[in-house]
């Protein structure tokens, strides 16, 4: 089974040279730590920055420079700053190549639910609905099952939807799966020590197993 850093590291291998990428809060943020040295990737922060750098040194903290998770950050050379309207114009206009975000549920046709649990305090969707409605490529980083042990890869989402038919790939502690255009989770890789059967048992939606199943390199 992968820990959250290993999930982030595996997702980082999906990055390609020249990509502009939006990273959601949580595990997706960790992906920044594993970007391969030989490629150039620019990270977008939807509150108005292209070119997120590492966290600042103690003496360099600037309250006027934060990411969408409200963490203090720095900028890399070649960064640009802009308004929220311009930022979402960028997102909605499909200029961002890849969005990586967390989810509560993903359905076998690529629907995602990640913003609201009925009966609990609703904090809001933030930029998630804009991102999932607009991204050319969406990868979800999440646990395969929830705290009650129920699968988060479902036939249909049970929680309120964030966006339809948008998730392309999922990386969990157990496996890497593609969401097929015609529906279904295609198993690509399993975590070290995890069997196909274990993935099957943890997946409520249609799991498609065929061809070689690789083991995730950690």
């Amino acid at each position, binding site marked *: 089974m992968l820990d959250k850093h290993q999930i982030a590291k595996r997702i980082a291998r999906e990055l390609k040279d020249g990509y502009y990428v939006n990273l959601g809060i949580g595990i997706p943020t960790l992906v920044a730590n594993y970007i391969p040295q030989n490629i150039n990737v620019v990270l977008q*922060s*939807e*509150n*108005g*920055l292209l070119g997120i750098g*590492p*966290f*600042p*040194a*103690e003496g360099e*903290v*600037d*309250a*006027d*420079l*934060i*990411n*969408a*998770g*409200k*963490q*203090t*950050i720095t900028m890399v050379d070649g960064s640009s*700053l*802009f*308004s*929220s*309207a311009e*930022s*979402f*114009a960028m*997102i*909605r206009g499909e200029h961002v190549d890849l969005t990586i975000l967390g989810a509560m549920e993903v359905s076998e046709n690529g*629907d995602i639910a990640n913003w609201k649990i009925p009966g609990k*305090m*609703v*904090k*809001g*969707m*933030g*930029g*998630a*609905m*804009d991102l999932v*409605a*607009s991204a050319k490529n969406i990868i979800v980083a999440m646990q395969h099952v929830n705290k009650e042990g129920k699968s988060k890869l479902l036939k249909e989402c049970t929680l*309120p*939807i*964030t*966006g*339809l038919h948008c998730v392309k790939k999922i990386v969990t502690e157990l496996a890497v799966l593609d969401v097929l255009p015609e529906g279904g989770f295609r198993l690509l890789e399993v975590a070290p020590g995890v069997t196909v059967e274990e993935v099957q048992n943890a997946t409520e939606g249609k799991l498609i197993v065929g061809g070689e199943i690789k083991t995730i390199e950690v």
Partner: protein
Amino acid sequence: MINKVINGPDEAVADIFDGATLMLGGFGLCGIPENTIDALLRKGVKRLTCISNNAGVDDFGIGLMLKTRQVVKMISSYVGENQEFERQLLSGELEVELLPQGTLAERIRAGGAGIPAFFTPAGVGTEVAEGKEIREFNGKKYLLESWLKADFSIVKAWKGDTAGNLIYKGTARNFNPMMATAGKITIAEVEELVPAGELDPNMIHTPGIFVQRIFQGSHYEKRIEQRTTKS
């Protein structure tokens, strides 16, 4: 050039009335109009509708106006990090309208730009789309969203001049530029106010035409929500 300078935040808010709709700039606590919020607390104006991406924290930003029960409705994209907010929401004292962040930003831009409605893909298939017109363009579904305007827009900039031109700094820009365009009256507080002619016309983020009142604020706390540093 027209001089927009006023004495300070109390003069800025003098005619803000009970029941007014306000836009307040900022993302989290970054780029919020601290001085004008303080003046609103002093004035004690009531039944406000506040359009702002977030609702502050319990003891800073819009959170302070929630504590004093000055706000009856929030229009936001994300309202976490606030216990009092949660209490008022659950008790029915506070109404909340949640919008996708990009839709919020674009509706405000549309309000300032004279665009009464536009189509966006955000929210299709979700509860945000309920009651809204859906239309397909090039095989993709979009929903119709309308403009947002305010009686007063309250923004915070880094530098400003006497003509009302504004320059923001870092990610403190966020919602401030669009909000500056969408208020019947726009109030700008700045960290540094300079005479017209000192700012490079080519580097202005908000042209003075959008700003009716400007003053230099003081004692910016600029509280940080998530202080993260290199280990």
